[in-house]
């Protein structure tokens, strides 16, 4: 593999042990994936932030790397934590767990992530980190990766946890996979037999496509979308996040909508065509049977990936003047929550008995330990990880149905 003089010097230790270790990781991954060289990246997005997933060994390693002098060389954002870093007591998180999670955030701050004050979110693109079409980045969160590649036309592979930190420290990643033109062509043509309408419908469609195509590059035709569509980004965000959860899709195209499909009509796959539907199958695939142990929904979760301002506004309007009978949590990026507060949306949700938490992701949080057993969510990704990581039962349903269940 070709390395520059600077890269050789870093591997020899000229820039200190933390940079050497980081470059060793980036080079090893580049070799494994057959890259011929490294390329500079404009930004990095790091996953593996939850103390619940990192464990003590992960935290110990991060501390060791910081002590070696690990500092990021490019703008870097951070995935959600297991809790709201301010309002964790309202979530019922215990102080010992919170202390560990706070230490993780402090370590990333010490590395210079987020300019030393990271904003934990899975939607960096909703708070200003929006790479341009063709820009090379190294992002790790699977739903952000698929958004950056597909909706923005930027270029990133699905980086792993330590691999993304390493990329941030050296400002480079291997030139392989989705950084290369040839890998960005679609591999399967997808037709939705049952046209999606709501954001949750796009999530259900994504769940089915992800299950059936695994790591393909789907090219959607015939979706009822146009560029003036209300909530277009929310729909594309939901579609991608679902495919990245039930499959490992990192890039998709939508005819006439996504930037690369608009720029190059030749991207469309020839050959295999997948007809998908009905959407009810997508909802059912990620829902536990109604006759399971937990007979009644005890929590509604909205905001996977983190809710946009539009999504928060929709919930606020639906709950305005009403009273929830069970907890309803909306998760979002802290700056998005701040705007929602200024617009009075958070007050409406709280008046109904709901909460808007920032920084947090329930799928990687201690949901089961908090006593919840059956969670309803309009997100396929949320449902998938609640079952597999948080280990609670789930109802994946349209947003209106989730809200009605909480109000009934």
């Amino acid at each position, binding site marked *: 593999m070709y390395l520059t003089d600077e890269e050789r010097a870093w591997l020899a230790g000229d820039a200190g042990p933390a940079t050497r*270790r980081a470059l*060793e*990781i980036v080079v*090893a*991954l580049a*070799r*494994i994936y057959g890259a011929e060289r490294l390329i500079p990246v404009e930004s990095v997005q790091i996953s*593996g932030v939850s103390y619940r*997933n*990192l*464990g*003590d*060994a*992960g935290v*110990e*390693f991060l501390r060791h*790397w910081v002590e070696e002098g690990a500092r990021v060389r490019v703008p870097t954002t951070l995935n959600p934590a297991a809790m709201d870093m301010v309002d964790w007591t309202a979530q019922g998180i215990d102080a010992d767990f919170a202390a560990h999670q706070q230490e993780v955030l402090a370590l990333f701050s010490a590395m210079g992530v987020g300019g030393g004050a990271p904003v934990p979110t899975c939607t960096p693109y909703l708070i200003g980190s929006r790479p341009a079409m063709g820009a090379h980045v190294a992002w790790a969160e699977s739903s952000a990766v698929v958004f950056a590649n597909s909706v923005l036309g930027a270029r990133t592979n699905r980086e*792993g*946890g*330590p*691999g993304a930190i390493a990329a941030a420290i050296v400002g480079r990643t291997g030139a392989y996979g989705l950084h290369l033109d040839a890998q960005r062509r679609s591999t399967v043509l997808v037709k939705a037999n049952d046209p999606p309408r709501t954001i949750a419908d796009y999530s259900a469609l994504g769940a089915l496509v992800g299950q059936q195509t695994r790591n393909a590059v789907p090219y959607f035709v015939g979706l009822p979308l146009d560029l003036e569509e209300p909530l277009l980004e929310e729909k594309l965000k939901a579609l991608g996040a679902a495919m990245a959860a039930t499959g490992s899709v990192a890039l998709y195209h939508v005819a006439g909508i996504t930037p690369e499909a608009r720029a190059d009509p030749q991207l469309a796959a020839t050959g295999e065509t997948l007809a998908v539907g009905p959407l009810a199958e997508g909802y059912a695939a990620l829902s536990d049977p109604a006759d399971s142990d937990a007979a009644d929904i005890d929590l509604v979760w909205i905001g996977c990936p983190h809710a946009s301002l539009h999504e928060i506004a929709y919930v606020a309007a639906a709950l305005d003047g009403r009273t929830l009978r069970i907890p309803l949590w909306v998760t979002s990026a802290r700056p998005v929550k701040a705007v929602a507060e200024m617009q009075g949306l958070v007050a409406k949700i709280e008046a109904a008995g709901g909460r808007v938490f920032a920084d947090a992701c329930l799928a990687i949080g201690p949901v089961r330990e908090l006593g919840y057993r059956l969670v309803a969510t309009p997100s396929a990704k949320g449902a998938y990880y609640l079952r597999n990581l948080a280990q609670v039962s789930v109802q994946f349903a349209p947003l209106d149905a989730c809200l009605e269940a909480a109000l009934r």
Partner: protein
Amino acid sequence: MKEQEDAVVFMGRVIKDGVAEGEALVSPEPIGFLGGVDGATGLVTERGHPLEGQSVAGKVLVFPGGKGSTVGSYVLYQLARNRLAPAAIINQESEPIVAVGAIISDIPMVDRVPIARIRTGDFVRVAGSEVTLWPAGTRAAE
């Protein structure tokens, strides 16, 4: 001398540069470190795994490649902190979990070595890309 006559040398691909040696512990099956190896004891804990119940500590651990959760990288780090890490790792074909784990834990690692030629109990030395193998018994006088 005898060890020179019996030794076999393979050239692999460096994943983590370094020099280490020890007795080979060979698994014909992939290893998933998260849930598969106990970071506190060094014992393989995966039910039904060919190495179940054996310790990886100080061994030259030879297996086709990694599997399972990406958090497995940190289990290797935990083993290293507890001085229970393998002395070196040899894979048929490396994948990111074990590769990253070896790098963050300073465990010399090579891949693209014909691992079917290595048996548990053989004595193995890893030095950069070079793997030297003494079949079991031939280096007993060391």
